């Protein structure tokens, strides 16, 4: 009897297992987006070790590059002094222009493009898989990081926060294939949705849209929590589709994702998502999709 029961149980598990891919492929194919303690329990356990490892590896690299590998320093120093002198002159010019711009903005009644507070975080985990790209940063829920907040560097957009632990957060990178971003072509103001594709991004536009190699893309600020005007990347290739309707624009992001050391998390989070969280609470994010629709 007991043997019969075990055999039945195994049959049920086997059938469930064979059906699981169908359930999986009928889902939205989105990564876990959660700040729940239970979901991230394993990551909370692993985080201190990851932090220690990263700190130790960083120390070794710093000691090597600051005290041992110094053969190019003298040449670089001379070049940097020359650059610095040139930049000092330019800065004086820029400061003057900045004052002029703010005066003009005030006159025109424009708001500053981004005025929210921000959180500076250190990158402690590299992107783990070539095909599914995230980075881990050293600031989490305790520091005020929330799901949906945009992450940027001085160069441009990095990605969006998808998970938050107590002292860490995972940022979904712009170049991941699951990442979409609403952008504008700075020169022509044409709008489109940028999609990650390995080490670059692609943008599909109507063939009539005017695009040139070297054009800069900026965030549109319409959806996704990114403020308007953040630099995203530049157009490096334009290919025309055989349907004679569309063109595929290849965009090289300004951010070098292999060399990010710090990111700035902007507290200008996704307004729509925040409204939902404020109304339904944090637990809403962990609910299955069907329940969310019902709720």
């Amino acid at each position, binding site marked *: 009897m007991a043997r019969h029961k075990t055999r039945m149980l*195994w049959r049920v*598990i*086997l059938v469930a*297992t*064979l059906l*699981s*891919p169908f*359930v*999986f492929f009928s*889902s*939205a*194919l*989105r*990564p*876990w987006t*959660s700040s729940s303690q239970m*979901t*991230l329990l*394993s*990551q909370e*356990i*692993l985080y201190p*070790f*990851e932090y220690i*490892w*990263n700190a130790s*590896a960083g120390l070794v690299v710093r000691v090597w590059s600051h005290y041992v590998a110094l053969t190019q320093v003298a040449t670089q120093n001379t070049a940097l002094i020359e650059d610095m002198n040139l930049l000092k002159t330019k800065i004086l010019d820029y400061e003057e222009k900045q004052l002029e711009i703010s005066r003009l903005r005030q006159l025109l009644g424009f708001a500053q493009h981004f005025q929210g507070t921000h959180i500076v975080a250190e990158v402690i*985990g*590299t992107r*783990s*898989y*070539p*095909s*599914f*790209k*995230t980075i*881990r940063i050293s600031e989490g829920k305790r520091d005020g990081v929330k799901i949906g907040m945009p992450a940027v560097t001085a160069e441009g957009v990095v990605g969006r926060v*998808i*998970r938050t632990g107590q002292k860490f957060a*995972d940022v*979904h*990178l712009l170049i*991941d*294939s*699951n990442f979409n971003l609403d952008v504008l072509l700075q020169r022509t103001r044409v709008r489109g949705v940028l999609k*990650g*594709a*390995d080490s670059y991004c*692609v943008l599909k536009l109507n063939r009539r849209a005017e695009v040139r190699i070297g054009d800069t893309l900026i965030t549109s600020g319409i959806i996704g929590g990114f403020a308007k005007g953040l630099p995203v990347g530049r157009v490096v290739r334009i290919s025309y589709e055989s349907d004679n309707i569309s063109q595929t624009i290849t965009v090289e992001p300004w951010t070098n994702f292999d060399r990010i050391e710090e990111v700035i998390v902007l507290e200008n989070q996704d307004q729509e998502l925040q409204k939902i969280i404020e109304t339904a609470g944090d637990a809403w994010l962990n609910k299955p999709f069907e329940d969310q629709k019902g709720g």
Partner: protein
Amino acid sequence: MQGLARNDFFTRSSRWARDWRLRPNSGHLWKDIIFLLCIAFIQMTVLPSLFGSYGYLDLITPWLVVTFICQRPLKALCLASIAAIVLETRLAVPAGLYLCIYWILCSLLIQIRPALSWRYRTPWFVCYVGATLWVLLFESFVINFLQADLLAEPHYFVHALLRLIVATGYGMYLSSEWMNIDAEEPVPQ
């Protein structure tokens, strides 16, 4: 007799090191979970930081293959779920990808394991190659939905080949203790 056994520092240290040697079938579920988390840490943090883009290797799959062959079904399913959740909450993979991959692999191996002799290299080798290929193909299938261009990149194939070789080699090392003619049978009776 117990009193005659050596109990100095070195003996105790070597006994401790033997007990805490990183292996997939330690005999205790809690120890297996700790070891699994260690392997996940090595795979996701240590290797990428040491070897850069060539460090994205797969150590968890061969580890789980040994677990599925040597552990009781419930324990094996439990460890498979933990491994899948660890991977999914660290990467940007679609939720459920690794749960699906490892559950299917676990059920399949548990069904076929009594029919094979695990004292020979061939069944182990076939299992590691098969399991790694299964993971790679399932991932490629999902990537195909999201980002077809990546599959055409030569570096993707080089990386997949490297993952296959390392996973198989690491798996053969893990299971070497069962590949003797007088070794204990790994499948629980």
